[in-house]
């Protein structure tokens, strides 16, 4: 370990588990509701015998504990976070402020029409804006994440074929570089994923696609730009092949940021799309969620949308249910999905406006192509050097792995020491030792240059002292963790010591 790295180690002990703050008799008393009135008795055999082992700590202990834990995280607000396929752009504070206005935060999902019009107006307008950017004819907002939107989409495709008496179509075609959620969703919907090859130039192999489609084809799931960070140039031909075979086209909206305001999935021939509002429309990722995976549909799938959908009828808004949409795939959420996330996305879209939408596509693509150009100048190798980058691009480090024994994981971990979150590593699986890098439009030229400087410095280190990289990171709260032990000696919950 280098001396500078050693000097960054803190002398403070690691933050204890919250349970270690517990002392019998301690508590955040001012938070306890007063116990007026008599509660009815619960029959003894249904009562809890012993209290659960939750912390017994002061409010200050808890506030300090979670404040300290937060400081162990990298986040968009603290670090450049160029995680490919995840669109880690700035999350404007106004979106959160609006969603947490007391009337919105306190609105019950089953509130009467009289106390719903303001909220539903936002939701209706959000549906309309999402139709506009996607080029689709209907939008349903309830799916709660990208994968949930995928589920809705594939379930609609199945319902469509079933409504035509076409019962054998159970194959979902996915390119070999597809997101893992695509084949997993196919399975959730009782379908089988069938992979098609991608050519050396990054586009789908059309001959392989023609050979794959047939009377069992339910549809194809594609991202465009693809997971390889390039635009699928033959998309119109892909649509023709799949439609002529009787299948439908599903657009995985993970990469919508790249083409926002430039080209619309509906115009490319897609029948259904999910949009990750937590990517393109900048709602927070929250350390793993919540997301929102609104779905848009073309004319074939309009009758099958999941409920509820917001309708406007003579100036009043109301939620449509199964009675209004009898062919609907049904209800996928207890109420109407991640409404507070939808409000945040609505506010963001209103602040961007019409022109702001296409600027997103412009500057996300500019930043990505600039970063790629500078990294190539610094000696890094592009996976698709002949292609324009979209909003993200792939570097392949297989030469470095061969010559210096330094892997993509080593580079990723060393970047943390330089104060940058790592790009996506080892996805897509198709490219050896890859880094998938997505800067987003909200990063400045200065931040991108600082990232290039860090990557160049790490490249130097790889030549001189590869061990430094193998053992990175050196300045984080922990060093590399023993994942094998984590899986073999499962410790998934704290338990009080037996007394």
């Amino acid at each position: 370990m280098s001396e500078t790295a050693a000097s960054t180690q803190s002398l403070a002990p690691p933050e204890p588990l919250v349970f270690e703050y517990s002392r019998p008799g301690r508590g955040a008393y001012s938070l306890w509701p007063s116990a007026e009135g008599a509660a009815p008795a619960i029959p003894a055999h249904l009562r809890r015998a012993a209290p659960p082992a939750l912390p017994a700590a002061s409010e200050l202990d808890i506030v300090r504990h979670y404040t300290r834990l937060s400081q162990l995280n990298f986040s968009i607000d603290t670090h450049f976070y160029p995680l490919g396929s995840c669109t880690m752009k700035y999350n404007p504070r106004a979106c959160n402020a609006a969603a947490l206005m007391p009337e919105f935060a306190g609105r019950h999902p089953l509130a009467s029409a009289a106390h719903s019009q303001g909220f539903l107006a936002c939701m209706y307008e959000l549906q309309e804006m999402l139709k506009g950017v996607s080029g689709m004819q209907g939008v349903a907002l309830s799916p709660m994440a990208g994968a949930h939107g995928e589920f809705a989409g594939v379930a609609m495709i199945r319902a469509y074929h079933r409504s035509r008496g076409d019962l054998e179509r159970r194959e979902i075609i996915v390119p070999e570089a597809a997101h893992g959620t695509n084949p997993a969703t196919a399975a959730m919907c009782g379908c089988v994923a069938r992979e098609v090859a991608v050519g050396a130039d990054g586009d789908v192999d059309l001959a392989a696609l023609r050979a794959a489609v047939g009377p069992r084809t339910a549809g194809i799931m594609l991202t465009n730009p693809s997971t390889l960070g390039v635009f699928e140039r033959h998309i119109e031909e892909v649509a023709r092949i799949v439609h002529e075979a009787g299948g439908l086209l599903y657009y995985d909206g993970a990469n919508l940021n790249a083409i926002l305001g430039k080209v619309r999935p509906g115009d490319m021939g897609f029948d259904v799309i999910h949009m990750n509002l937590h990517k393109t429309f900048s709602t927070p990722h929250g350390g793993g969620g919540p997301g929102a995976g609104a779905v848009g549909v073309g004319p074939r799938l309009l009758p099958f949308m999941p409920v509820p959908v917001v309708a406007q009828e003579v100036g009043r808004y109301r939620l449509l249910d199964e009675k209004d949409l009898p062919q609907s795939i049904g209800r996928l959420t207890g109420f109407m999905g991640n409404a507070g996330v939808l409000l945040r996305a609505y506010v963001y879209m209103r602040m961007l406006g019409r022109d702001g939408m296409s600027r997103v596509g412009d500057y996300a693509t500019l930043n990505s192509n600039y970063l790629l150009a500078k990294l190539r100048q610094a000696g890094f190798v592009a996976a698709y050097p002949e292609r324009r980058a979209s909003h993200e691009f792939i570097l392949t480090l297989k030469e470095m792995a061969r010559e210096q024994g330094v892997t993509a994981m080593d580079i990723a971990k060393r970047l943390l020491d330089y104060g940058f979150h790592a790009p996506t590593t080892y996805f897509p699986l198709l490219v050896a030792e890859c880094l998938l890098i997505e800067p987003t439009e909200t990063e400045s030229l200065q931040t991108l240059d600082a990232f290039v400087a860090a990557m160049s410095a790490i490249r130097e280190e790889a030549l001189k002292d590869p061990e430094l990289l193998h053992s990175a990171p050196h300045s984080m709260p922990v060093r590399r963790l023993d994942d094998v032990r984590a899986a073999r000696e499962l410790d998934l919950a704290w338990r009080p010591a037996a007394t």
Partner: protein
Amino acid sequence: MPFIPHTSADVRTMLEAIGVPNIETLFEEIPSALRIGALEGVPSALNELQVLQLMSARAREDGRPLCFIGAGAYDHFIPSAVWSLITRGEFYSAYTPYQAEASQGTLQSIYEFQSMITALTGMAVSNASMYEGATAVAEACLMAVRANRKSKSARILIPRSMHPHYRAVARATTANQGLVLEELPFARASGQTLAETLKSYEGSDITALVIQQPNFFGVLEEVDELTDWAHAQGALVIAAINPTSLALLKPPGQWGAKGADIAIGDGQPLGCPLSSGGPYFGFMTARMEHVRQMPGRIVGRTVDLDGRRGFTLTLQAREQHIRRGKATSNICTNQGLLMMAGTVYMALLGAQGLEHVATACMSRTAELVAALTALPGVRPMFGGAHFHETVLRLDRPVAPILEALAARNIEGGFDLSPYYPEFGPSLLVCATESRTSADISAYALALGDVLKNVRAA
């Protein structure tokens, strides 16, 4: 430009480095026939002041009625520290903790969540959250089919006294995988699912029995008897529970002789605002023997190269990014930030605080029921023990009553008549610790007035 920092000098520098004359050239690989001009359907931009003015006006339209609706979403008090902590940028704007060394804050919090929620449910293991309670029921049904290897039927019994939306979500989510969800009747007198009703299922292949405690009517079920019955049939038990109630009620891990196999629920009562239905978080806990059949992320404790304690995502071979088409679920993004709210809420309240909340809910609801049933034409539907909601029987249609109450700024409850036509006019009401005696009196007064003006059936 909103949220884009580039100066025109920056843009020139960048285009030069790339070697293109303008940004437009970067899109040259897109077939020109597909390119669009101005976007339809999107209005022009508002600045932050304008958008917040718009949102304030929309919020005022909805107002802040007095809420007596429960039905799966509960108006609990949320300590100020909860959202002040979880909206710190380091939690709010972080991604899924795939880079463990740079995500120890989120990872340790998830481990603490897993510890607390399993302490509450009395189960061995928990994942890091599902979308919400309803999807957790659906995922639990799919998990039970994988976990119960002796059962070949993929047949799951769900009580009709479970939330109708939860049942609808379970149906829509599992139908394409061939699961058979059969609805069990409840006793009209008590609102409970009774073991004697289940006699006709004995001897047949049942994969799992779902038990909701308290059920949709707020009624407490005989969970021990139902659990033992299911186990005797070779079925697994899926417990669907309200986490607040577990401060007082027997945890599913102790139901019957062996305990439930999977316990799930909606975490909304633990620090999540009502927010029109979401974001909330679902939780899923299970017996240790089923851990490899669980969907979603799980965090484990381990050590780093220097032997220091650390936390990491584990058992990832269950998940879609590794196992693809053979994963236990397609779930990727979950409800991490809301799980954080639940974690901070449980840590702040502790066992004693949570018991105060649950007890206060029960006494408020008792007060509410006493006040409302003192009115002519309002009667309780079921006797027996309740948690914090209850069904009232009315002598005239509910919809116009609720509308008249809404005009007086009161959300009076959830109309059950469309879902349970055999009840006739019936209303599910709820009072949490947030409702005061004055609120309850105001509701009783308003309802008394409204009943004078709405004609009896």
